[in-house]
């Protein structure tokens, strides 16, 4: 056994990591069990209602088919699916790693097999499917330019003989949406966490800095813009700015992951515009919806997991913050995605998905059982679990 293995064993067995049990533990567990049961019954009831309606519609259709020559008016059954339901499309074997949506198509990256799919938003049919040269970790769509950017990361690791092999690298491919042909490729010698397409460029947050990939005469070219580890990045298409998050060591911070500081730079000149205060979260994600900026992340204790930032100063503004114990139930953290006009938040605790008003922070709609990342355009929202693409039924004020 190596020294590191021995030290790891001792660390894991260190009694300082033992936690005191909350006296109300059992009652909390029972309450959460009841909540789960209620939620399951609600979903089962809603599902049954849809099946019954579908069954009635089918039966009427069959009967009308048997009565030759007789015109029967189609039943005007237009059920409004209850909140929490989604229409699911089976994507077949493999797992979904990423997804992005435009007004006409959903782009889905799949692994094992490694492939890129295009699904029509009109009828949810798979319209294009192409094998990818590597396992895509994430993708971004540049609808105006007709491009899909994909990226795959690899890491150095130790093989069974103890030898270090491989290198940290991110392989980026550019596809034309017209035919799914590869229009270019570039490799960055570092490990990517996040990326966003903006103004015809791809901004990539990596373990060794923030890179921008531009299209030169002979293909994509990557250049480092900011040094140091950058975990998250988001693009402000209205003001042509890029926001990124940098973790900082925070003396005395309650969060063992440290704090994060959000920076804003000009997308063209790369000059700094604003730097926000430290936020007590780690593993952050940034979402920009119109001129509203939100940051979600993982934290400790009762500190907020979700922050609404002022667009000029990047200071946190007291719109509405959600902490671990709120009714919304973020638990240990929050993950955010931008919609066309709403903010999407996945709870790290319940794993539920929520649609939030980006101006007020008000909760508009929830999907307790929908998994995976989410993306939307106005009127259309999708989530992608391993085996399926779910089209969310939007109702009320959640417009996608």
């Amino acid at each position, binding site marked *: 056994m*190596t020294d*590191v*293995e021995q*030290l*790891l064993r*001792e*660390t894991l*067995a*260190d009694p300082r*990591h*033992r*936690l005191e*049990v*909350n006296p109300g*533990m*059992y009652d909390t*567990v*029972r309450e*959460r*069990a009841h*909540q*789960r049961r209620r939620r399951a019954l609600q979903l089962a009831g809603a599902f049954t209602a849809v099946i019954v309606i579908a069954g009635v519609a089918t039966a009427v259709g069959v009967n009308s088919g048997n009565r030759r020559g007789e015109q029967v008016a189609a039943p005007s059954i237009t059920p409004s699916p209850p909140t929490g339901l989604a229409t699911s499309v089976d994507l077949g074997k493999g797992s979904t*790693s990423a997804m992005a949506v435009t007004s006409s198509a959903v782009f889905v990256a799949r692994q094992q097999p490694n492939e890129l799919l295009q699904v029509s938003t009109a009828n949810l049919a798979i319209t294009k499917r192409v094998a990818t040269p590597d396992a895509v*970790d994430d993708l971004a769509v540049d609808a105006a330019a007709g491009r899909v950017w994909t990226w795959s*990361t690899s*890491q150095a*690791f*130790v093989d*069974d003989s103890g030898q*270090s092999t491989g290198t940290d690298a991110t392989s980026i491919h550019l596809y034309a949406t017209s035919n799914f042909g590869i229009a270019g490729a570039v490799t960055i010698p570092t*490990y*990517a*966490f*996040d990326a966003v397409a903006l103004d015809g460029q791809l901004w990539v947050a990596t*373990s060794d800095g923030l890179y921008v990939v531009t299209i030169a005469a002979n293909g994509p070219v990557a250049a480092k813009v900011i040094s*140091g580890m950058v*975990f998250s990045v988001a693009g402000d298409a209205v003001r042509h700015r890029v926001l990124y998050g940098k*973790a900082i*060591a925070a*003396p005395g*911070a309650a*969060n*063992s*992951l*440290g704090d994060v500081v959000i920076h804003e730079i000009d997308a063209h000149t790369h000059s700094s515009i604003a730097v926000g205060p430290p936020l007590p979260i780690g*593993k952050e*994600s940034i979402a920009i919806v119109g001129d509203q900026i939100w940051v979600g992340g993982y*934290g*400790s*204790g009762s500190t907020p997991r979700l922050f609404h930032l002022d667009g000029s100063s990047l200071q946190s503004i007291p719109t509405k913050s959600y902490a*671990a114990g709120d009714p919304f139930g973020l*638990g*240990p*953290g929050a*993950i955010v995605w931008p919609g066309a006009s709403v903010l999407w938040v996945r709870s*790290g*605790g*319940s*794993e539920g998905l929520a649609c939030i008003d980006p101006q007020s922070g008000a909760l508009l709609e929830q999907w307790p059982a929908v*998994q995976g990342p989410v993306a939307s355009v106005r009127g259309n929202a999708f989530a992608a679990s391993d085996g399926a693409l779910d089209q969310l039924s939007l109702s009320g004020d959640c417009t996608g």
Partner: protein
Amino acid sequence: MNRSDEDDFRSFVAARSPSLLWFAHLLTGDRHAAEDIVQTALAKTAAGWSRVRRKENPEGYVRRAIVNTHINAMRRRPWREQPREHLPEGIDSRQREHELDDRDAMWHALAGLPPRQRAVLVLRYYEDLSESDIADVLGCSRGTVKSQAAKGLLHLRRIVQREDAST
């Protein structure tokens, strides 16, 4: 849940919660997250307790639920490893008065591992599970367990060595 199952479940929670919380803390590195996933895993288990209690190892079943709950909760786009260039300073102010000892450095280095990699190491070096058992818990192949363990150990070695060099 009938009265007998209810009593049994209450006893199980009372007796095993400290151990389950410790285990969850090792997986998450965060007190609040540990409490949350233990509560979630127990709530999931409660519905089928009459069946689970008859298993040879009910606690093993709950631990598996804890691991899977944690990995699912951390699933993002998916999760990317977040290595630390420098270790964050300690949670406890007393720790800052002294140099971080090796175990503290290792504990903080663990925070930089993706959840599945960290789970492999916790199951292997804390629970002492075999590669086959770990593969069973995580629903992956033995090869994946091996490579995840190797990657995790390499990451820990790099961080700890870097800290050694800087102190």
